[in-house]
């Protein structure tokens, strides 16, 4: 820990290619490969990385990967958009109207305390094994997340900006449009990002438990067929999907809100 006095610690990586990082990862993967091949690690069903890579390649080549991938992607995105619309719509109303907020927030907090995962069985009760069940869970969970973030963003308008609005004698509608909503955007975007990860996770869970399609379902089937390479391959796919979606959302929000992204680093 010897450093210059007063120097601030920099997080690892300077934005250039992280050579130590990538080589460590490669080294670990190599070790894994060796361990499996030489049977030093006695874990039944542990596949070698080469096997996993092969399985991924096969799934892509035969096209077997794409139907479940598209199903999950579609469910997650559709659910997310619906959750976002519901959450933002309701959130703005609750954020702007003091009485509405007072007479609903506590209920919302209580309902929110119930983990969305435990609602999968309820959704099964209601809709059986279907896409609708999946969407119900996704929209339900995502909407609360977005709602809470939106309410917070709307309510936390800086008092100085409220003063500016009054000084300029803006009508309520104008003030909402020009001051409240733009100022709430960072908060709303955070909520949307959380909701997106949540949507993907819940889609997979719902598919694992009750939908005969999608990546979650394929994953379970590979596991139950005792196909470790394929199982891992699906896990990797799901992980990558999450990374790509998140990165995509981040790029889009950085482009749509340049002023906030660059200046305040909250969205970075």
């Amino acid at each position, binding site marked *: 820990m010897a450093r210059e006095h007063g120097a601030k610690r920099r997080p690892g990586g300077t934005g250039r290619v992280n050579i130590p990082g990538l080589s460590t990862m490669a080294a670990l993967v190599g070790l894994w490969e060796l361990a499996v091949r030489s049977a030093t690690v006695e874990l039944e069903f542990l596949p070698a990385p080469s096997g996993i890579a092969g399985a991924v390649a096969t799934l892509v080549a035969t096209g077997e990967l794409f139907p479940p991938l598209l199903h999950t992607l579609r469910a997650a995105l559709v659910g997310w958009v619906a959750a976002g619309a519901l959450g933002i719509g309701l959130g703005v109303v609750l954020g702007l109207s003091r009485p509405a907020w007072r007479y609903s927030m506590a209920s919302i907090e209580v309902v929110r305390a119930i983990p969305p995962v435990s609602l999968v069985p309820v959704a099964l009760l209601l809709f059986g094994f279907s896409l609708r069940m999946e969407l119900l869970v996704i929209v339900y969970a995502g909407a609360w997340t977005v709602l809470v973030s939106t309410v917070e963003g709307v309510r936390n308008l800086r008092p*100085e*900006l409220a003063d500016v609005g009054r000084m300029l004698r803006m009508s309520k509608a104008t003030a909402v449009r*020009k001051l409240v909503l733009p100022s709430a955007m960072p908060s709303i975007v955070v909520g949307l990002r959380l909701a997106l990860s949540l949507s993907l996770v819940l889609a997979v869970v719902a598919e694992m438990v009750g939908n005969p399609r999608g990546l979650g379902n394929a994953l379970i089937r590979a596991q139950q067929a005792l196909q470790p390479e394929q199982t891992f391959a699906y896990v990797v796919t799901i992980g990558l999907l999450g990374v790509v979606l998140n990165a995509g959302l981040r790029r889009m929000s950085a482009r749509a809100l340049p*002023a*906030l992204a660059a200046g305040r680093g909250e969205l970075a």
Partner: protein
Amino acid sequence: MTVATDVREAAPPATPAAAARGPVVCHCRDLTVELGSSEGPRRVLEGITADLREGELVSILGRSGTGKTTLLRVLGGLVDPAPGSQVGFRGQPLDGPPEEAAFVFQDYTASLLPWRTVEKNVALGLEGKASKGEIRRRVADALETVGLAERARDYPWRLSGGMQQRVQLARGLAMDARVLLMDEPFGALDAMTKASLQDELQRVHQQRKPTIAFVTHDVDEAVYLSDRILVLGGSPATIVRDIPVELPRPRDQLATKELPQFHRLRRIVFDEIRAHHG
């Protein structure tokens, strides 16, 4: 205009110089203000009677916490006075922020919209009230006046504190505000930036002759800039003294501050403040 005349007649005895100045723009009679706090309502201002005349630059001076900002906010229609007070703009009782007045806030970063460029920030007060071409012209004019024409497309967070404050000023100028209410606008700036902005404000005042009410706790600044200083003191605060500042214009940071008259006025103001300990 009869109301305005009434107001002038009811005004406190004015100095000979004041009589030569323009009509009263803002006025308050027996102004009392109570604010809510965690311990219950607190009387911040009491019995304030004052006039602001057209084209004047008036400082509201006092120690921190005396209620200078509150007084300014009352004049700007942002705070309601207690019943029994009279506050008026151009003779009419005040009902919300007056159309012709622009408020310049102390926290410039917080009162600029971070998601708009400088020019769009300056345009905020004009949107919906003029044609696009007209808005563009007035914004460009205002930015030119404050010297920020080249930074029009930047976002506020890229600008220094002094520049951000100038953006706020430009916003008021673009609105062609005849009254500028400024709340310690230069308080957070370093000495050199403060000096240059003071002179810029002077220049704007010479050119366009708006009425300016200027809150500050800096005695030198008050004496340097104003035509008149209202000293606030006591708790609840009242106007302790109304000091006319008759220094020649245009004023200069060095020359004016060497005049014996400047020092005399400084002393008078300091004595008043010290005599009314908070």
